[in-house]
């Protein structure tokens, strides 16, 4: 609870985000074939795979498919992801979210193949037969514009970075009073988007540190990867969409009171307090 007489304060800056290095590569991905009899429950996610991956059915149980060039993201700690179709696009930027499948390296004769992967099966009792993630892809330049400036002109780059930190501390729209209005506001929009993207990653990592088990009902970043071009934020995939979609699906655009309470509880606080005693 805030006290009325305390003066307002600037928001403390976020810690810089921690990114691990990765690279995009091509390779082979083996996926279970839905046409065999024992494919069974795998069929559902097969459809999801084929929607983005141009795979045809074949008589063998496991089919070797070449990925489209560069569709595999290899990150540190042997984590690899198969990038699939876009699921969102934000109009104000070049950001988009792709569906992805975590991959594991194929072992052949006891030896791990470095350029062949297979999709990971989900744990027993999971909603989907395969593990699925959402991968938010943002251009590196957009998340770290000051780094780019550094490369071009080192001294000036440092100055700009100082300016960015100052901006993070307080209000950011003073620029508009400047006579070079159009140029500055364009730059400040760029800085604002960059700061938002960077802050989001920092915030996600702050939450992950405080809530390592992921019970907190905030969508977490499992891993944040960068290559030369892009920054990839890997998050759980939420197939059911947004709460807004849920409301739109209802003919009246409303939820039953008990439904609403359930989701409201998730948004706010406690699913149940099961620690008795």
């Amino acid at each position, binding site marked *: *609870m*805030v006290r009325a007489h305390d*003066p*307002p*304060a*600037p*928001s*403390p800056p*976020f810690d810089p985000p921690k990114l691990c290095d990765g690279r995009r590569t091509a390779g082979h991905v083996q996926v279970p074939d839905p046409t065999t009899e024992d494919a069974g429950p795998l069929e559902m996610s097969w459809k999801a795979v084929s929607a983005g991956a141009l795979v045809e059915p074949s008589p063998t149980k496991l089919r070797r498919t070449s990925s489209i060039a560069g569709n595999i993201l290899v990150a540190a700690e042997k984590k690899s992801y198969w990038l699939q179709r876009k699921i969102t696009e934000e109009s104000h930027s070049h950001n988009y979210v792709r569906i992805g499948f975590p991959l594991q390296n194929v072992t052949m004769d006891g030896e791990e193949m470095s350029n062949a992967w297979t999709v990971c099966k989900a744990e027993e009792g999971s909603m989907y037969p395969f593990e699925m993630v959402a991968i938010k892809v943002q251009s590196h330049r957009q998340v770290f514009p000051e780094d780019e400036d550094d490369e071009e002109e080192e001294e000036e780059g440092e100055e700009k970075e100082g300016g960015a930190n100052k901006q993070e501390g*307080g*209000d*950011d*729209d003073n620029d508009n009073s400047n006579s070079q209005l159009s140029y500055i506001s364009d730059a400040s929009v760029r800085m604002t988007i960059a700061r*938002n*993207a960077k*802050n*989001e990653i920092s915030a996600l990592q*702050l*939450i992950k540190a*405080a*809530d390592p088990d992921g*019970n*907190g*009902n*905030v*969508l977490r970043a499992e891993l944040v990867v960068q290559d030369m071009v892009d920054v990839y934020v890997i*998050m*759980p*995939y*939420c*197939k*059911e*969409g*947004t*709460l*807004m*979609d849920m*409301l739109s699906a209802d003919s*009246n*655009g*409303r939820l*039953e*009171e*008990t439904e*609403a*309470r359930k*989701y*409201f*509880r*998730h*948004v*706010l*606080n*406690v*699913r*149940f*307090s*099961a*620690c*008795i005693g």
Partner: protein
Amino acid sequence: MTRMEKRYTFVMTHPLTAPRWFLQGLKTLQKVKLCHRNLSLENVLIRGDVCYISSLGLSLRVPVSEDGTVLKLMPQAVCGKKPEYIAPEVFQNEPFDGYAVDLWAAGVMLCQMLFGGDVMFSAPIPEDPKFQEICIHGHLKAVVDKFQALVTDQKAVSDAAIDLLQRMLRADPAERLTLSEVQEHPWFKDG
């Protein structure tokens, strides 16, 4: 069955997941002293049967004084896509309590979930008659009754829900319920 017994039943049927506290959503954010600032129905994702808050791009760290008191934030540029989710004090460019603006947005979300868009005001400004009625004068019940008289297929929303909504949608952030007060509200706690 008392609430205690209900909980106990749950523990018995879900032994693996139950013996933990499931902290969620806003509580998680407040634990790490973040305010989201862009909470809306579009920014809550559903996986299976569980919601997750997403889109933290506009979140801010909440300043805390040396003695651990949460401080108000300096006015920031107004942000967010939909004006009704923006708390009135943010709209007026005043210093604001980061947690209170998130609870405002949560109240707007609940209002949308229960009534659809029809009861909602369109912007948190005194010129908006519905905002004036609901958030300044506190006449949500009257607005809802008027709405329900028009719509015949609408199931009545309980008085407890309307009471909670009214307490969350107060123009003055000092009168608004805090997160722990919402948790203690009968509608949230029971049923």
